[in-house]
């Protein structure tokens, strides 16, 4: 091979990936680096953002229990949402997988359909049903005399978990569904012929094989829930803030950009650590099953 050809062959990958690389650097890496830098800048009510290097924002987040509470709430909601989607989504996917042709595609559409509708619209639905005295369900139950005061839903963590779980469900169902597709169609018959009952088949044969699917679904749901903005903003509003809505408020209401940047950076770093860490654990644990 001539020198020119060799040079061309080493340069070709760079040239070919350049457009995507430029986009990646331009719209992701640079803004991200700027956000991280911004978190070290100073801010004052009257002087605005001052481009200096100080640890004031980080110090504030580390010492003020308000922020600890905020992050703890964020991850608590994300964990509960993940558990709820796993508990409902895994059986849902299993039942779906056992349905016959026509029903299967119909219900798959029912599950995936909501993905076509905006998260805001889906969350507002919950607000319409349970929003204070005017919520449809609350109104109905109160007029029937079943409850005296409206069911507390808006501005509660329970409400947020329920609404988030509803929004995230398709991701869990799809992930478990994908794992179920890899199952040998005769595997349940094989276990049955060896004398296993339905409960044993689910516990000993199906569960261990779809666990990687449940866990990868859990990672998706967890990271999306912890960084979710629209649902917490609508259900929790100003009264029940999570990390994402807090960062938003610091940016757009208080106008304390550096503090907002610090909150956003911390959320990102925490999420990356959790996701990468649990992914490595899962891969090691299930190496034998999916080689």
């Amino acid at each position, binding site marked *: 091979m001539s020198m020119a050809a060799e040079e061309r062959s080493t340069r070709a990958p760079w040239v070919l990936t350049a457009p995507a690389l430029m986009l990646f650097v331009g719209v992701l890496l640079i803004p991200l680096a700027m956000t991280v830098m911004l978190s070290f800048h100073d801010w004052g009510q009257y002087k605005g953002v001052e481009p200096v290097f100080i640890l004031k924002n980080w110090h504030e987040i580390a010492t003020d229990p308000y922020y600890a509470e905020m992050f703890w709430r964020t991850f608590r909601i994300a964990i509960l949402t993940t558990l709820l989607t796993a508990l409902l989504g895994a059986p849902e996917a299993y039942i779906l997988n056992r349905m016959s042709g026509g029903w299967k595609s119909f219900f798959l559409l029912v599950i995936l359909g909501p993905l076509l509708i905006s998260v805001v619209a889906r969350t507002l639905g919950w607000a319409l049903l349970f929003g204070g005295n005017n919520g449809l369900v609350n109104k109905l139950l109160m007029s029937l005399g079943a409850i005296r005061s409206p069911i507390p839903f808006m501005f509660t963590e329970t409400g947020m978990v329920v609404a988030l779980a509803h929004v995230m469900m398709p991701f869990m169902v799809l992930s478990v569904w994908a794992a179920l597709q890899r199952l*040998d*169609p*005769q*595997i349940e*018959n*094989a*276990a*049955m*012929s*060896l*004398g*296993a*009952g339905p409960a*044993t088949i689910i516990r*000993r*044969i199906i569960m*261990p*094989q779809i666990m990687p699917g449940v866990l990868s679904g859990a990672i998706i749901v967890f990271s999306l829930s912890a960084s979710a903005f629209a649902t917490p903003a609508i259900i929790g509003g100003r009264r029940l803030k999570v990390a994402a809505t807090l960062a938003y408020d610091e940016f757009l209401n208080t106008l304390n950009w550096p503090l907002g940047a610090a909150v956003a950076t911390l959320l990102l770093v925490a999420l990356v650590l959790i996701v990468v860490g649990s992914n490595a654990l899962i891969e090691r644990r299930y190496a*034998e*099953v*999916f*080689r």
Partner: protein
Amino acid sequence: MAYLELDRVAKQFGTQTVVDDFSLSVGKGEFISFLGPSGCGKTTTLQMIAGFLDPTRGAIRLEGKDLTAIHPAKRGLGIVFQSYALFPHMTAAENVAFGLEMRGVPRAERSERVRAALAMVGLAGYEDRHPRRMSGGQQQRVALARALVIKPSVLLLDEPLSNLDAKLREEMQIELRQIQRTVGTTTILVTHDQNEAMSLSDRIVVMSQGKIEQIGTPQETYEKPASAFVSQFLGKTNDFAGTIDRTVAPTQLVAGSWRAPAPAGLGGPVTVSVRPERIGFGETGLSAKIITRIFQGNHWLFQCDSECGPAIVIRQNDGKAQPAEGDAVRLTWRPEDMSVRARAGA
């Protein structure tokens, strides 16, 4: 008395009849093959015995007891699936132990029996391997060990060798037969491979379109096919159109210029079936021209154009001179080497 008995078993899916009027008695220790093209209902019949499907009509009895009333998990049958259906998250030993565990066999006895079963299929030392790390042949052996370790009353094999390459398949056929002989388990094999069915079974059930065409030993089904389907499906055959002339005495069977005394009971248009290796070249008989001559080592294969349509002839390579391509020959065979059936619509 029959060990396993299927009595006029039928299966319908909606309006479609997949298996119809299937009756069979299997003796204890017998090796039976269900042979037929795909869609002939052989796997459906196997699944009804296994209990994964309920028959629409008819009864299945094991040692006189109604098998259909017993839940598939309680039937105690060993099944080897086409895809093996091993549990990928368990090691080979755990796979084999699963059935024993379900039966509550104590741990010490369990590990002893698992080791013996794996050794029987030639997999001693592979106890801790996961199925994904084994070859197709090894997985197949694990599946066989898993089915046999529970000492099943009947072993059901659903195309177990079809995913293996030709050489390995032949090895496994021999091994399967040996294991079955040693253990003595009554076995039913579902296959579309006539060689597999012939080399393994005591009796073959030839099926087509949900119906039994013939039940017989491999030799019977090959030598005396009960229908055109059986003779076509098991090996190569020549079908010649002939007539039985009852106006002359003694009555004669005529096919082109070949003639022989007519068998009793038939008249009018008939089909004469002769295996290619039973046809010889003679002075009299069906006149034909050799189109191609293929040398295959231990035998010669001739494709001929006869007065009754195309014909195949196989001759042993016994060192004698053979006719060449383009030669005019006379095809002849012994009357006992043919089977004669009434020909419809002639």
